[in-house]
């Protein structure tokens, strides 16, 4: 059992959620309530990671982050290390790959709030930010929860993007999925089996937490 790989995987999942949720809530709500020019293009761009083969996505991210690209050079100058084949680079790649899984459920849940409810909140004297915190966010909460769990589960299982951008550096970019593949290549079936079982347990646990939380949230909806 590669405990370091499990730690990398869990940190990657948690980090992806931490980066993506605020962004997803902002963008999802924006897409739900505003009509603006280019909205369709934005929605299409968000969906791209969903339809692109992970290796293709990984390839483009690698090219974008690479030492020869302006973005890669800027990061190098700022942080003093390169993005590809580092945990930070993996985190950025994972966040980008998960955008559709986060933005779409959140957008749907904000869209599901009736206009009358929002109007009623305004007529109750709630300024926009209070209306957001006290009315919109609690009502969109099931969507936010779904987004977080989808992103976490998807990050644990991601293989193509991780391999392309992160490589296979122990303790840095070797996630559990990569480690399983790695062990199989080395004919270490037992380790691979233990790690696969671990991921299975994590997956089932995630689903159970989702079900419990959504049941607790459920009766709040009229």
């Amino acid at each position: 059992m590669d405990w370091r790989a499990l730690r990398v995987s869990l940190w990657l999942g948690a980090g992806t959620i931490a980066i993506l949720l605020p962004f997803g809530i902002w963008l999802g709500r924006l897409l739900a309530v505003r009509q603006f020019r280019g909205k369709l293009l934005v929605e299409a761009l968000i969906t791209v990671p969903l339809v692109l083969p992970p290796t293709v996505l990984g390839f483009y991210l690698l090219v974008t982050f690479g030492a020869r690209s302006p973005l890669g050079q800027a990061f190098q100058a700022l942080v003093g290390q390169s993005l590809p084949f580092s945990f930070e680079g993996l985190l950025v790649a994972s966040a980008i790959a998960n955008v559709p899984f986060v933005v779409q459920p959140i957008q749907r849940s904000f869209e599901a709030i009736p206009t009358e409810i929002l109007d009623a909140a305004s007529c109750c004297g709630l300024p926009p930010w209070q209306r957001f915190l006290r009315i919109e966010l609690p009502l969109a909460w099931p969507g936010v929860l779904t987004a977080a769990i989808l992103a976490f589960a998807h990050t644990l299982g991601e293989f193509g993007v991780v391999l392309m951008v992160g490589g296979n550096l122990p303790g840095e970019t070797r996630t559990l999925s990569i480690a399983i593949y790695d062990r199989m290549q080395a004919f270490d079936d037992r380790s691979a089996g233990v790690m696969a079982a671990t991921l299975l347990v994590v997956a089932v646990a995630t689903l159970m937490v989702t079900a419990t939380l959504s049941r607790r949230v459920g009766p709040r909806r009229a």
Partner: protein
Amino acid sequence: MRDRRLRVRLRQAAPIALDVEFACGAGDVLAVFGPSGSGKTTILRSIAGLYAPAHALVQSGAATWTDTGARTFLPPYRRAVGLVFQEYALFPHLTALGDVMAALGHLERGKRRGRAESVLAQVHLSEHASRRPGQLSGGERQRVALARALAREPDVLLLDEPFSAVDRAVRRRLQDEIDGLRRTLDIPLVLVTHDFEDVVRLATHVLVLEHGRTVASGPVTALMSRPELGALREVTGLGSVFDAVVSRTDAARGLVELAFDGGTLLAPLRDLAIGAAVRVRVPAREVILATSAPEGVSLHNVLSGTVSAVHEDAARGQAVVQIAIGSLLLLADVTRDAIGRLGIVVGARIHALVKSVSIEVQGVSARTRTDVAP
């Protein structure tokens, strides 16, 4: 005393045609009445600041909420307005108490709960304070919505089809409740409805709307006595509406005597105390005209008066006669043939015969204000 008069002027051609101008004084109930799609709700939304017509002026007392001429537009959350939505729009994730507390942002944190509890008690919902909208009946939801709208002590209360989603029995109780509020609040109350019963029961003034335009407006009793309002006939049937007081009850004969400014009427006995204020509606088609008082008939009410107006409708071969009885202007629907036969002209003496059972009586609270909305 603070001036709380609401003044509204809205004008635009598209996308929703609007051309209305009205005022509503404190303690008055203005019913905006018209078919669906006539722009009623848009008027309420414009007052609340949820909609911005091309040309608009909305003033509450000394405060200007909207003035497109001066580019003034106060956002809804800064207007002292209570709005009860048609489907109530309660917050699904909050209890009745939480819902009302959400509207109390202007109070200190520590005072909100107490205030919300007392407002819920006012609408008799204390025992349901911890329930969410899904656990409340239609009538209870409406009372929460009402409590929420009133909790902020608004300068204007707006009600959008407040009775459309509840059954008839609940409707009656809610109407009474709102009528009670009207007396204690002393703020302008604007009620949007497509049901004429609401107008008769609750309104002091009415504004009849068609395609966003005012067809008629004024005090309910004055407006209902005008013979030429074909628009109203279409939806309600013509009939005069006036205020009266119960002067006598006669249980033995099963009758109640109603005194109005100009005489008395007998109606079937109802659960009404002597001295109770009632609103009376006499449908125009139920009134029979006679040149001399008949004898040996079953009807109780023979009212003598003077013909004050005759409005002939050539297309229908009918006419509406307005008869002045004291200050009451009674309307009668008759055929043009009857006009000729009886020699009905303005100024002629006439008897109006009304069956007691055709008189519609509704108990209301005393109405003192009669000033005219422009």
